[in-house]
């Protein structure tokens, strides 16, 4: 039995986490599954100390940008991260910039307005707020904040200038989106404390990410003077500082991994701070290396039929119930082996990218609130918060 999958998300009394996989082992269990790779200090060793549950980083960036190829579960990971960071009474803000209302769907609430509202309470009293940034309202907001342009804002809207600014004007839309997130990062309350401990942004997919984040640079080049220029410069200072970390979500498949590698290269070229790689929807290990070797070498069919028969699945003789199961079951094992080999290659590629790697399991029953909390717990145990 795999101690990782066996122990699941809930820590057993006196258990300890596998630092490489973030799952819990029962007390005394050894971490020696095939999935436990070099780099897991617990490999082959009994857990040292039950209290060492949370691995804390020295510095966690206050603006965490989450991107990835479409379909990798960016929004889910961003939301789990917002929950994971909202520990011990901390407040986090989960920001959506693409108008998809993905957060509302995930948290099973009605569509989010352009307003910061609390959507979840994390264990230990932390709070998660969410904001769906609407570029048009953000622009009016911005005009109001800096120029007190109440009536003129409406006139602008009538003229189509707001439409222009938010849909057509190069980069302006993106400055407004990133600008709003940066504003939330820097906002302080009356007592001078940060309004949010962390801001997590569910960013556009990898293909458009660098352009999205770097757009302030482009606008700063375009608008060489003026408030937009200054705003863009200020936003860029936040985005390029250690205050920001850009995480990429991937699956263990070729194209998402390739896109992750490309994305990291682009981010580095643009001098944007790269954070972590989060491998999402990792499938459980169902056949260990010994069994995979047997499948590769071509296990005797009759032996499998006898095992199946012994397990109560019909006769092992030719044409018997168990015998007839052998072909389809071995076929499924071949598929599994092919995918397993592919996943191993992709893990190697990811490891070479030189960023911390995290893995989140595939939640077979689909994503819901319970699943989100489960993923958040995994992230926390992997020392991401």
């Amino acid at each position, binding site marked *: 039995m795999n101690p990782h999958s066996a122990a699941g998300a809930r820590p057993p009394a006196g258990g300890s986490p596998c630092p490489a996989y973030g799952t819990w082992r029962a007390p005394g269990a050894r971490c020696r599954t095939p999935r436990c790779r070099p780099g897991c200090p617990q490999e082959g060793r009994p857990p040292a100390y039950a209290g060492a549950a949370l691995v804390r980083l020295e510095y966690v960036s206050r603006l965490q940008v989450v991107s990835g190829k479409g379909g990798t579960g960016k929004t889910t990971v961003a939301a789990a991260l917002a929950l994971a960071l909202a520990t011990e009474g901390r407040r986090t803000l989960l920001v959506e910039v693409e108008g998809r209302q993905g957060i509302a769907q995930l948290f099973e609430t009605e569509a989010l307005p352009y307003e910061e509202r609390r959507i979840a309470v994390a264990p230990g009293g932390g709070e998660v707020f969410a904001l769906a940034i609407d570029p048009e309202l953000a622009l009016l907001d911005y005009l109001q904040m800096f120029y007190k342009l109440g009536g003129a804002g409406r006139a602008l809207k009538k003229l189509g200038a707001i439409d222009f600014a938010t849909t057509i004007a190069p980069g302006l839309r993106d400055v407004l989106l990133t600008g709003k997130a940066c504003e939330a990062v820097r906002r302080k309350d009356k007592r001078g404390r940060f309004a949010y401990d962390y801001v997590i942004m569910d960013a556009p997919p990898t293909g458009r990410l660098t352009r999205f984040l770097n757009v302030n640079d482009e606008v700063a080049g375009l608008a060489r003077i003026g408030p937009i220029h200054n705003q863009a410069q200020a936003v860029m200072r936040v985005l390029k500082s250690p205050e920001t970390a850009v995480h990429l979500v991937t699956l263990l*498949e070729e194209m998402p991994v390739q896109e992750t590698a490309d994305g990291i290269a682009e981010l580095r070229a643009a001098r944007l701070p790269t954070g972590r790689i989060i491998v999402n929807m990792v499938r459980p290990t169902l056949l260990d290396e010994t069994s995979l070797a047997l499948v590769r070498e071509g296990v*005797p069919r*009759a032996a499998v039929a006898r095992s199946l028969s012994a397990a109560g699945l019909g006769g*092992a003789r030719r044409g018997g119930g168990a015998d007839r199961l052998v072909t*389809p079951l071995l076929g499924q094992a071949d598929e599994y082996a092919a995918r397993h080999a592919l996943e191993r290659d992709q893990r190697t590629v990811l490891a070479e990218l030189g960023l911390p790697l995290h893995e989140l399991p595939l939640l077979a029953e689909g994503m819901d609130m319970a699943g989100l909390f489960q993923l958040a717990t995994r992230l926390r145990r992997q020392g991401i918060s």
Partner: protein
Amino acid sequence: MTPRTQGTPSEESPVPIRGLDVDPLLDDPQTRIVVCCGSGGVGKTTTAAALGLRAAERGRRVVVLTIDPARRLAQSMGIDSLDNTPRRVKGIDDTAGGELHAMMLDMKRTFDEIVEAHADGDRARAILENPFYQSLSAGFAGTQEYMAMEKLGQLRARDEWDLIVVDTPPSRSALDFLDAPKRLGSFLDGKLIRVLMAPAKVGGRAGMKFLNVGMSMMTGALGKLLGGQLLRDVQTFVAAMDTMFGGFRTRADATYRLLQAPGTAFLVVAAPERDALREAAYFVERLAAERMPLAGLVLNRVHGSGAAHLSAERATAAAEALDETAAEDLDEAGASALDETAETAETAAEVLDEADGQVVDETDMEMDRPEGIADRPEGKAEDRTSGVTSGSGSPSGSDSSSGSDSSSGSRSPSGSSRPNGTRDQQAVDHLTSGLLKLHAERMRLLAREQRTRERFAALHPEVSMTEVAALPGDVHDLAGLRDIGDRLAARPPKTPGG
């Protein structure tokens, strides 16, 4: 295109699912454009490429337009790079007289070409060098979608191809490409442009006093916001583009109408997952609202099993039975077992050799049984105690009558049902337990996919569907695309285990 129904809804499924016949759609000379849309990560690009290849090998002159910046189509078509002009794809089967061309949209290049085609030398240069233009054309929100439509219009106008297969941009909402031309059009026709073009004219009109006030506030605000220099850049750009605006609008409208025309078929691509199908449902509704002709839904990455009659519950129980037996064997592992190893291994090997040569013909017999009646009657009639000792976890008992082959003679008196505690057999038992767990997982996945699909079919009974079985790896070459094409065209839609 009218949706092609298959007529007979599949009997196993409680919700009738209409089958989508891909081949008649691709073969119909009236079909001139196929648009693949869907959310990210569902295999849109691969589907578009596979459809293009299939149509070409069935005799049509096809061009595939992809807009995806990840250059995935290039990879899957085995071409090193795709530029802004269609390239002929080599290595396809052209015995039917078809051709396959592929291209990848370079939106800046497309925009530049429009400028060059519609403005004289100096003016074109002025536009191309304008910083505002450079940013706009480098691809901010909307430009990509607009240029995709522009390119589609161009390809259609060239009339060199029988069929254009389009892959849509990986937008935040995959139907942005429908909105972008309208947005750009409304902007170009809008008051703002007129204001930027000729503020004095607007201000001078009678009865426009309010607007006049708004105007000065607005130019002031814009100036404040963007900086005077950017505003000047925009004004210069707009002035230079003046003559082209009408053209943009007209072409955007023409392309939009082209999409509504009967020669166009939209295919919504999705995976059998809750979120992907939810988004697919949104596309279906949106296309209907825009009066765009929907041909059907392509459901990618659908799983099946050749052993669908074995339910997840029964497979899990059997795996547990094997695991328990293994644990017991460990406990009572003695030296005696080791001595016997060699002998039994030989016996086993003989049996195996014999069985290996066998072709199991009856496999199909039980394959199509729905999982609900997985327990076979003969299993129930058997004496349950003679089977697995640890069989408490096995719901159906064992079929011991079939154990009359050579292995049944060597059952150990300790009660283990297996021939012997040999290491080989232990390893095989361990593997078998894994196989059963794998199967249980697969069956649960099948059930989930089935539920999701039925929910969609209940919401949109009018939508025809075709399914593509999941592949273990990615598609890299024409052979892979051909395989996908075969799966796309296969009918009827499979029920789990079919």
